[in-house]
């Protein structure tokens, strides 16, 4: 049995930022457990630039962004184990993990930070009929093959889903000599960043078909083609719009799902919209001393926000370990109308600082007003030139405002067009 003050599950951007922050807050005994061979998480395969604009004010590639934190982890002598899989976290914060070198590890922690990230939605979840040929994979899997292994997963490609990974892979495959026939998006808008639509598709004349999906896949051994069709407002294929496209590869970029299997095993309460834990402003879950941050909590569009959120969790865990948490009095937050969710879902009004509420909308708005109310009374009204489902928004609740709230109150955020 090993003992640590803090065990961080996951050594990607979230886990590293949380661990570093906890160390800065005075926690000496920290262990990061990472299932991959290296620290860095999914950033290691995201070799395109565009990371760090918010946090570092620089255009970094994924590995560069990760490396800044890896270097810090090493400089601070924060302990970590790679190629190590966490099998279970118990309610009393015992962490069971396994690797080749140490075998089965049993680690007792005072606090645990869950930072397992997310995974891509697979084909099965979409129930696309057709064959079971090879050549169908998620965009992230293709990204790993191209950028880490240095092999081409296909030459004539159709991409289903216009999420950022799909767009990035459209460009990447094109640069490496593949022909990307088109990107199909089920929704009438793309969930990807505008920058990526311009620089990854328009630059290379790759068509983006909105309100379009793949309804059939052909090919016995390897994919030989797909059938696409336009969909109506209920996302059902419209008869007569079917079109066959010859291709050897279908890449899927149809959404990300937080990896909360460990979270569920502990019995931590999850938010039905985010698919992540319900947390307070320090990202503490409903199990005392267990925190969650990064994409395991809710899927972020920018890693810079993951870093910021994870620092909050790191600080929260440090405060908890140091006994500074105090007795909380919670109010809850609630997204109304177009506001699909808010993180955190609850806020301790005894908190000594300002609290940022992060939220996501369900449709696109131009020149909209974001309104924040407390128990029905409007507190804040802010103009936003543009709101989109693909871009996370935030509003700050100042501490003096927080102090006027009472336990059990409700903060609501709405958007008016």
């Amino acid at each position, binding site marked *: 049995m090993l003992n640590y003050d803090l065990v961080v599950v996951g050594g990607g951007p979230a886990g590293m930022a949380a661990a570093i922050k906890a160390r800065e807050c005075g926690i000496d005994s920290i262990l990061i457990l990472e299932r991959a061979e290296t620290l860095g998480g999914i950033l290691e395969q995201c070799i395109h630039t565009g990371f760090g604009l918010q946090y570092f004010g620089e255009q970094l590639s994924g590995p560069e962004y990760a490396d800044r934190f890896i270097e810090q982890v090493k400089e601070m002598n924060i302990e970590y184990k790679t190629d190590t899989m966490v099998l279970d976290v118990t309610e009393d914060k015992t962490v069971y993990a396994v690797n*080749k070198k140490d075998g089965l590890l049993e680690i007792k922690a005072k606090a645990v930070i869950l930072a397992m990230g997310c995974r891509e939605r697979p084909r099965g979840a979409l129930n696309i009929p057709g064959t079971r040929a090879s050549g169908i994979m998620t965009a992230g899997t293709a990204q*790993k093959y191209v950028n880490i292994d240095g*092999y081409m997963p296909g030459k004539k490609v159709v991409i289903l889903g216009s999420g950022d990974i799909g767009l990035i892979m459209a460009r990447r495959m094109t640069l490496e000599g593949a022909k990307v026939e088109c990107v199909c998006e089920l929704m009438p808008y793309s969930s990807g960043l505008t920058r990526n639509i311009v620089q990854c598709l328009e630059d290379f004349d790759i068509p983006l078909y909105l309100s379009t999906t793949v309804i059939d896949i052909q090919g016995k051994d390897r994919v030989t083609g797909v059938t696409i069709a336009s969909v109506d407002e209920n996302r059902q294929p419209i008869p007569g719009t079917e079109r066959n496209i010859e291709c050897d590869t279908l890449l899927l970029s149809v959404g990300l799902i937080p990896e909360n299997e460990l979270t569920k095993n502990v019995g931590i309460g999850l938010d039905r919209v985010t698919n992540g834990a319900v947390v307070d402003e320090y990202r503490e879950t409903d199990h005392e001393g267990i925190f969650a941050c990064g994409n395991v909590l809710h899927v972020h569009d920018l890693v810079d926000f993951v870093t910021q959120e994870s620092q909050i969790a790191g600080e929260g865990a440090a405060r908890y370990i140091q006994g500074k948490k105090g007795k909380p009095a919670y109010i809850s937050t609630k997204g109304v109308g177009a506001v699909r969710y808010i993180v955190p879902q609850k806020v301790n009004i005894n908190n000594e600082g300002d609290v940022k509420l992060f939220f996501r909308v369900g449709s696109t708005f131009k020149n909209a007003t974001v309104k924040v109310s407390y128990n029905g009374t409007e507190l804040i009204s802010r103009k936003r030139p543009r709101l989109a489902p693909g871009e996370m928004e935030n509003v700050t609740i100042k501490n003096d405002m927080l102090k006027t709230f009472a336990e059990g109150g409700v903060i609501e955020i709405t958007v008016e067009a």
Partner: protein
Amino acid sequence: MNYDVAIIGAGVSGAFIARELSRYKLKIALLEKCNDLAMGTSKANSGIVHSGFDAIPGTLKAKLNVKGTSLMPEVCKELNVPFKPIGSLLVAFCDEELKTLDMLKARGEANGVPGLEIYDTAKLHEVEPALNEDAVAALWAPTAGIVCPYELTIGAAENAVSNGVEFIRNFAVDAIDYDGNEFTVKSGENCIKATYVVNAAGVFCDEIAAMAGDNSLHTIARKGEYMLCDKSVGNTVNHTIFQCPNKMGKGVLVTQTVDGNLLIGPSAIDIEDKENTDTTASTLASILETAKKSVPSLTTREVITSFAGLRAHLECDDFIIEKSKANDKFINVAGIESPGLSSAPAVGQYVADMIVSEYGAEKKSDFNPERKAPVRFRHLSNEERKALVEKNPAYGRIICRCETITEGEILDAIRAPAGARDVDGVKRRTRAGMGRCQGGFCGSKVVELLAKELGVEINEITKFGGESKILYERTK
């Protein structure tokens, strides 16, 4: 190479025939056109061990079903393949169907099926609360159970290979010659010689028989599509739920699988193309509609994948297991549709008896009926895991995160007798890639491990043999 017996087709029938014959001093080849075992009907069916009340008394189906099912618990134990005797309920929704229940009960009793019982409305809903309230009665068959069809095939074939059978994959038979003494079985440039040939080629039985000059068979490929649901709804039903059979077969069932998922299907549509295992949106929708008649709470929300399999149907509606009229050393094992999985252990014995008695083969003294249990890290206690990793560190590296499958288990699957040679083969043997992410994370690691074990570059690894390559050339 010269063999006493060549078995064409490494599905569940071929595998059990090989295993039964491997009890004797015989040189046996198990020939398979694909890159792995269980690549046809045996990898995509309901996985039901039927009690045996469906088949008409006196038919081979009736006889071998009841015998196979009675052998199944012991066989699964020997082969270390999970078998769950959950029993089945055939549900009636109207008076007309009540008569069907009585008829099938009588038929089952004539076939020698033990324990059949008619449950009344109250009893029925008590044992199976998720059933449609319109269900009025059911035929309860306690000997029915569930098994993973490809795991059973792999278990039998591995055991056969351990007992000396030679498994030859990628051997697509395209010609069979007979010189009056022995057969020459050809696959392109390759050929083997054998005294007996067993034709266990599933939907292709008729084509293989024709190569030996026997044009008496005509198999019809009957496609069945299925939907597999997440484990979170695996417990929706406690038993296998059948509706009353129709002329196309046993109809749409709802059942747990041995791995704890929920399975809905199959459809039954006769098709021309014997390799068409496409799923179609309309068929999947109609399966669900039909299944909801049994269990109204079913939805598509929990569906994690869909698949289709082909059954080898014969017009006579019975198994044909006999010496070919064209050549009495050529044995057809044809029309092995449902209850072919249930019957497989009995089919194996039946065919072995035909050959052994005539050939005068002696029993081996060193036949080992046991197949070593594969390591299943996810099922072990922490103490067992600890000991295991200490002994072999490869069990300490998790490759498939969703199903908790270790590198050691994947290496075992590749190194096993008749082991995996492709990604799907690893998946069927270990469950790596069968979880929620469907191989998104572990797929590339499985490819790496296969390449390393087989001593090839990663772009030579396939999903399931043939042209199903996963990667093209290097980017640079």
